[in-house]
């Protein structure tokens, strides 16, 4: 695959670093990441920042990785519900798969996600850990 321009990640910093979502001005529904049009048909939104706290909807493991993650070993991937109707896909860290349950409460943490080769840019973003 191509070693793409850093801009491809830079333009998503607000999503990937700060969980910036959009809130429909009409029906108040929250979309993450930002939506172009709401299910109610409205296309006017206000910015809102999600807290990063949520609960596990489901989870699985990545035992055979895509190329960028091969050196990281087995990953735990989960769908987290951040607030009603708003979910995010991310890794769970600091837990073993056998200790996780659907419904567990988690919080976000800022982590390195991947690296584009030895001299490429390092991608950062949000992962999740079980709330103690």
């Amino acid at each position, binding site marked *: *695959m191509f070693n793409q321009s850093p801009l491809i990640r830079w333009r*998503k910093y607000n*999503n*990937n670093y700060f969980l910036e979502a959009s809130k429909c001005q009409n029906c108040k529904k929250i979309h*993450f*990441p930002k939506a172009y049009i709401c299910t109610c048909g409205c296309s006017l939104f206000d910015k809102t920042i999600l807290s990063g706290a949520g609960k596990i*909807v*489901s*989870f*699985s*493991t*990545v*035992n*055979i*990785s*895509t*190329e*960028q*993650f*091969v050196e*990281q070993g087995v*990953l735990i*991937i*989960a*769908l987290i519900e951040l607030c009603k*109707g708003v*979910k*995010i*896909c*991310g*890794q769970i860290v600091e837990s073993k*798969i056998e200790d996780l349950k*659907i419904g567990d409460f988690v919080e976000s943490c800022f982590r390195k*996600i*991947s690296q584009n080769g030895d001299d490429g840019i390092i*991608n950062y*973003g949000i*992962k999740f850990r079980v709330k103690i």
Partner: protein
Amino acid sequence: MKIGVLGVSCTKFGEHWDKSLSDLLWLSQIEALNDAKISPKDLDLILVGNMCSGIFLGQQNLGVVAAENLNVNIPSFTVESACASGGVALRSGIISILSGTSDLVLVSGVEKMTDVNISQATTGLMFAASEELEAFNGATFPSLNGMVARSYMHKYGLTREQLASVSVKNHRHGALNTLAHLRKEISIADVLNSQIVSDPLTLLDCSPVSDGAASIILCSEKFAPKNDKKLVSIIGFGMAMDSLSLQNREDLCSMKATKLASEIAYKSAGVEPKDIDVVELHDAFSILEIIALEDLGFAEKGEAGRLEAEGKFNIDSDGLVVNPSGGLKAKGHPIGATGVSQAVEIVKQLRGSCDKNQVKDANLGLAHNMGGVGASVTVHIFKRED
């Protein structure tokens, strides 16, 4: 509406180390033309379902490859919708005939996957999901389906053994199909004890990485042979989409696109799920067969796992037979070829021209093809003319 099927063909699926993408495509093209008893010069349009030739082989523009293979200059182009590329190519062929611009259309599907290693294949297949929201975070296709499986097991009490029975059945069918990639019967214990790919899914819950090609020749009503008792027609079709990422789904245990596409297909064909005798559905992962059976109307919600474990969909059952080819699980899953090969299998079943995996007295068949994890879905309904 009625679209006639003049010819079908499918290469053996598997590891074709001595054959290129173009070789596989040509083999299926020429066999379908022979089956239809027509020459390339008779065709009005060629469509090619393919997803990964660019990333895996550095070659796109397969429409030109397909036309050059047959030494014709007619319109020919690729149709891409991830794993549903073949199904959408078939749909596009039907629409071209219904529009009145074509009378004879060759629809092929092809994928050459074994020229890359498993990490490269995993990376390429993940292009079908959301790059920004899923692939960026390290998710893979099996892990997305692993989350679907865990969610379904949690909500409906599906047991690991019931889930494994899907793969056991499909391998049993695949063992009977000379074109299948994996022709070996397996047990529940084999599935449970195989290597974990994405917990709770093991290697034997997942379809293999395969090479292969399939072709089907469609014709308008005026070109359909009259009084041919074995002529199979396409009498209904539907397509629907859902969100690219799983996070934007309300329910992980049902695929809205399958429900919508099948409702449209049943309505256009004027049939109901209970009328169908044989179905080829998109079992890229065992859990997807369970969910598709329910969304297509063949089982009540939460019941498909129990019915699978009881052998209700086996080739020797009295009722509906599911994936007599072995499905994606055992027949193989060369992405772009899969949707076309499902249609080919249904046509052969309705003609009564299958070998050991022939379903008895099949008159009405359905093919269900899915791209992404339920993101793009096609459903086609086939009928034998008699």
